[in-house]
Each structure stands twice: as C-alpha cells, then as structure tokens.
C-alpha cells in the first residue's frame, strides 16, 4: 500500500475513536460551567 495512504489510514484508525472520546469528555466538562 502507498506509504502516505497507510499513514492517513493509521492516524484515522486511532484518531477517530480518540476524537469521539474527546467530544464526549468536553461535553461533560461544559456541565461544570453551566
């Protein structure tokens, strides 16, 4: 596989779930300031 494409796939693989977790966390953090 193309090296650049592999890098993109690998970062999306780990970055996707991480972004989901971060979004959920930040929405919880906002409760602190409501």
């Amino acid at each position, binding site marked *: 596989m193309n090296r650049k494409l592999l890098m993109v796939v690998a970062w999306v693989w780990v970055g996707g779930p991480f972004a989901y*977790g971060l979004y959920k*966390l930040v929405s919880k*953090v906002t409760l602190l300031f409501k």
Partner: protein
Amino acid sequence: MPPAALSVHLAIGQAYSWSVFKSPLEKVLGLTGAESALPFQLGIVMLGLSAAVFGTRVERNGPRWAMFVSLCCFCSGFVLAALGMTTKQYWLVVLGYGGVGGIGLGIGYISPVSTLIKWFPDRPGMATGIAIMGFGGGALIASPWSAEMLKAFGVSYDAAGKVLAVADNAIATTFLVHGLVYAVFMSLGVLLVRVPAEGWRPAGWTPAASKTSALISTNQVSARNAIRTPQFWCLWVVLCFNVTAGIGILEKASPMITDFFRETKAPVTAATAAGFVALLSLANMLGRFGWSSLSDRMGRKNMYRFYLGAGAAMYLLIALFTNQSKLLFVVCAIVILSFYGAGFATIPAYLKDLFGTNQVGAIHGRLLTAWSTAGVLGPLIINAIADSQKAAGHTGPALYTTSLYIMIGLLALGFAANEMVRPVDARHHEKTPEATP
C-alpha cells in the same frame, strides 16, 4: 510508529473505565462495591507484575510479539469475563478480566516504549508522552462507548444514573463485543510496528549532541544490573509517591468536590461533579503529552522537581484555602492531575537517560511495580482517613485535610528521592563497543 503504539495504549487504557461496569455487576450478581472493584484492582496489580516479569522477554522478542501477546491476553480476558457472566461465575470474571487481561495490560503498556525511544532518540520524552497519553485516552473512549453499549444491550438507568434493570446477558454481550472490537483495533499496532535498523538516527542528530547533562548517559545498563543501582530505587520512590498523590484526588474526585463545597453558598451538583471528574481526566491526559515533551528541553530531573515540588504546593493551597474558592480548588486539582499523568509519561525517558536504550522497556517494566503499590496505597490512605473522620462526626473539607497533608509529605519524600539521583556508576555499564571510549 506512533499510531501503532496508540492503537495498543488506547485499547488497554480501557481499564480505567471499569467503573462503568460496577453498578450493573452489583445489580445482577448482588456484589458489594469492593467486590465489583476486584477485576480492576487485580488488573492493575497484574499490570505491574507482568510488566516486571515479562519485561526482559519483551525486549528480547520485540514489540510485534509483545503487542500480539497483549492483544491475545487482553481480548481473551474479555471473552472469559463474558463466559463468567453467562454462567454467573464471578470468579471467572475476576480471573478473566483482572488476571488474564491484566497480563495483557502489563505487556501492552511496555511494548512500544523502547521502540519509540529508538525511533525518536532526539525527543524521547515526547515519544513516550504520545503513547502513554494514549493510555489516559483509552478510558476517555471506553467510558461513553461501554455505557452506551450496556444501554443498547438492556441495562436501564434512572435519572440519577442508578441501575434499574439489567437484561439477561447484557453485560456478557458487552464484554464479548469489547473483546472482539479491541482485537481488531489492536491488530493495527501488531501489523504496523517496526524496530528501526541498528544504528538508525534522525537526520543531522548525533548521540553526543543530546548529551547536555551528566545524567544523560550514552552507556547501557542491563535490566538485571539496573535494579541493583540506587538510581532505580530512587525513581521507584519518585513514581510511587507521585502516583499515590495523584490517585488521592482521582479516586475521590466526585465526592471530594461535593463534600468540600456542601456547606457553602454554592454547593456542587452531581452534574457539576461529573464535569469536574471529566476535566481531571483531560488534565491527566494532556499532562502526559505536554509536560513529558517539555522534559526534552528542561531535563528529566528538573521536571520531576517541578511535578513533586509544585504538586506539594498545590496540595498545600487546597489544604489552606479549603472551600474559600471553587476556582482555586479546581485549578489546583487540574495541575495536580496533570503532574500525575506527566509522572507516568516522563519516567521512561528518565530511565533511558540513566540506563541507556537497550533494555529500557524491561527496566520500565520492573519500575511499574511502583504503580501497583501506589494503586493500593493512594485509595487506602484517602478512604481510610475520610471514613474515620466521618465516623468522628466531621463534615466538609475536614474529611480530607489530613489526607492532603499526608500527600504533601509523600511528595516531599519523592522530591528528596529525585534529588538523590546521580549518574549510574560505571561498574554497572554493559561492556559494549559503544560503552568503551
């Protein structure tokens, strides 16, 4: 290499979201809070023990082998736990998730460390910071994901988050899906991880250029010899007490902020306490990457002076100002938790500075027994003191003041241990061509 390391650490970091399973387990099996915590506690103990026992083998067989073994153990731990729930045999859940899965945690935790340091010899703090930040991020992903899956498979909650009913096999199915999904997710690390070629260096970088302090050695010390040096045990104390102090807040974050401000004009609601806990998780995770990366410029010993010294000052501020300012309390707790995470992330680079890169993974594995010790010590101190103060009729900040001063004492001891770290004596160095001038 960073995505490979992250795919393993983001998966095994799930361990810190075990609390999501506690209430449903208690409802189905009639367990107490202490009993439902057993799989997690055994998992953390096994993490330290397996990292210590298998560290040398991880170095010898390489990161691909280690990540594969970690995948097998961690995921089959979930499958065994699912089997335990289906047959209502709780011992199988404890043995599966805590015992077998815990071995996966330990081997997985150390699997990318020495490889990352070899790929980034110019920035080892940043490299290990990325991976170990992933461990913090694992709970951040698993917490909401596991909770939503439990709901989807038939666990219902009331408005306050109390479990109302658990459908047949809801927890077992959730465990099984976790095992399968994590197996696929971690396989990326197994497939992608690569050790750099012997003598590989970033363009324009030489080992001598990074030797900016007497504490940065270009010599190599074996894991067997490392544990015979006072430096290893000084760092063991540093890690143990830094983690103990952080867990002190992390363990009781939600009841702590509620109790502190209960008798004030603006008491803390359950939703606000949840937001506070989330904020601490964020600080813990960002501290791992941020402070550890900074250690490449500031030096490892200086950074631990900062973590331990400023950490003690933050605890002192909380103890002195108690519930006078919510903002001060929150800021101090954030800083303490960022140092807690940073302590984990910076230690592999500190070990690399002192003992060289050859067996840094194995040495790191042995040092993680400090984490297992702190995992028992921290909650024990803060829970025992809070319980005894409550029994004596105290309320509010008084429940925690003694614990706070104990934490300051432990951080001071850690600071002293860090001050005692000196370059490793030449008699412990391996006789390699690199070591002989």
